[in-house]
């Protein structure tokens, strides 16, 4: 019972959403179901949030025989404090451009995320030196196309015609290969979706029948 009913619900919801794509008469019910999906998926975001909080709170509690806390507990405390501060600022001070809520976003969240990804440029530079090798025919074709495209985007070697070659690489081989990948990925997505609706693919329900 614990497995059959959810799979039945999944089948009904899936078949309805696929069929409504072709039947205008179902539009009012389609709109209603879309609202339901919106609300439930919003809850799943909150679930993600709750599990983050759950993990950090867990780290702060004393556990085990000697009631020892997790070594990183001060960082978890900082995380929980950051969250509470942000919620207080949001619910009390509002979310306008001048609000503390927005300032916290601009000066804590934005710099951390932006800088974390800026680090990738450094790893790229060192990889360019140490691991991008024309070791195989594949890698040779790839690196030469990459160099042409990179130079082509700098626009000042127009005389040598490199930007035109670069543009052709984008509209030629890149277009045909990405089109084949889009078609392949599309078919893969559609078949995975079909297996989920029919209950053949049920790994999301968690393993076992407990």
């Amino acid at each position, binding site marked *: 019972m614990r497995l059959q009913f959810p799979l039945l619900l999944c089948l009904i919801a899936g078949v309805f959403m*696929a069929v409504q*794509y*072709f*039947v*205008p*008469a*179902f*539009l*009012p019910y389609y709109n209603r179901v879309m609202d339901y999906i919106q609300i439930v998926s919003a809850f799943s975001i909150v679930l993600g949030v709750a599990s983050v909080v759950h993990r950090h709170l867990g780290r702060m509690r004393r556990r085990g025989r000697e009631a020892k806390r997790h070594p990183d507990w001060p960082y978890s405390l900082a995380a929980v404090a950051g969250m509470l501060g942000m919620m207080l600022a949001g619910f009390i001070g509002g979310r306008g451009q001048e609000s503390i809520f927005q300032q916290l976003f601009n000066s804590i969240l934005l710099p951390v995320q932006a800088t974390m*990804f800026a680090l*990738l440029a450094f*790893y*790229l530079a*060192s*990889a360019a030196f*140490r*691991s*991008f*090798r024309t*070791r*195989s025919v*594949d*890698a040779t074709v*790839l*690196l030469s196309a*990459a160099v042409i495209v990179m130079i082509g985007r700098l626009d000042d070697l127009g005389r040598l015609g490199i930007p035109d070659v670069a543009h052709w690489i984008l509209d030629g081989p890149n277009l045909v290969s990405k089109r084949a*990948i889009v*078609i*392949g*990925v599309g*078919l*893969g997505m*559609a*078949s*995975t979706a*079909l*297996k989920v609706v029919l209950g*053949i*693919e049920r*790994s*999301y329900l968690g*393993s076992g029948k407990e």
Partner: protein
Amino acid sequence: MRGDRHGPRRARRALLTLTLLLLATAPASSALGPATNLTVRDRPLDAGEVLKVSFGRAAGDSLGHTGVARYELWRQGPGATAFDSVRSFSATQKLPTFSFDDTGLKPGRPYRYVVRTVGDDGQTAETPPSAPVAPQRQWFFTNKVNTLIATLIFVALILAYLRAARQGKKLFIRRIAGLDAIDEAVGRCTEMGRPTLYVPGISTISDVATIASLNILGQVAKKIASYQARIIVPNRDPIVYPVTQDVVKEGFLEAGYPHNYREDDVYFVTTDQFAYTAAVCGTMVREKPGANLLLGMFYAESLILAETGASVGAIQIAGTDAVTQLPFFVTACDYTIIGEELYAASAYIGREPTLLGSLKGQDVYKMICIAVIVLGVLTSTIGLLFTGEAWDGFNQLVRVRGAGG
């Protein structure tokens, strides 16, 4: 002051032109015109609950500069006599015509509309009631015929091959070159007496790439066990971790060397992406593996793993369906398994019915796509050569039309 004989006549004429000017620009406030060309039509291809009403501005009201305050839309429902107000439109909007979808109506029942113009001074003028129009309910998006056929063919193919695979029918899948590359890498690595490092991607168990990787891990573990060599498997996902343990243990069992399985060679590191990457790089530098197999789902950290592996001098085979990471793997690794090849490798080894069946179904569908493209291009070219106009029969066949108006 009146020194000029013509003065009065010119003054009178000036006065006259002034008033005419005023009249021309001033709204014909007394005669407030009704809204123009009120049209009501059923919204095509819908559930019959919507009527599309549109009307132009009253005569003399050019884009909301003069005398008109707002337009009110009134509706007379089926069987009712009185009109009730639906909505009002402020005339200050800079729109030449107003359009509005009136929703929540009853399919098949007649409705009539009237638009009342309300002037700044409270004057009103109404249009004659529109002819009764009933919203119709349609049962099929007639512009989606080709999509429906394509979807039905797809579903039929996938189900047919899934059943065939489950019944154990012989379904041919070619052996992809990547598997030979893995066998060769593992072979050379065990000759040098060095361990093999296997990273099953950093995604969860529900990710198709992770499942494919676990299938290949089983084959690799069995081969390594038969050479009595060592395999190291660091994990990032707590649910994938126990599965890798079982798969490797089973591999050693099948190879006939269950006692060679080392418990602490298959371990869980952490869930944090960059901390996991740092730990695996540390293992690479310490253990100096002869071969690195990076198979599964990867994100931005793929670059660091591949670079450290290359610096340690290991033979590296990568395989992922993360298209954005593939360029880095190709340049940093000795061989790369691209996108769907990973699923094909897993289906070839595991022969697992659901993966095998759906892969075959997709393959046959892809052949149909190739055939349609070839026919389309040939007929289009022949049309161009003979009639000077590219024949777009096949283009029409596959072109997707938005539901639109």
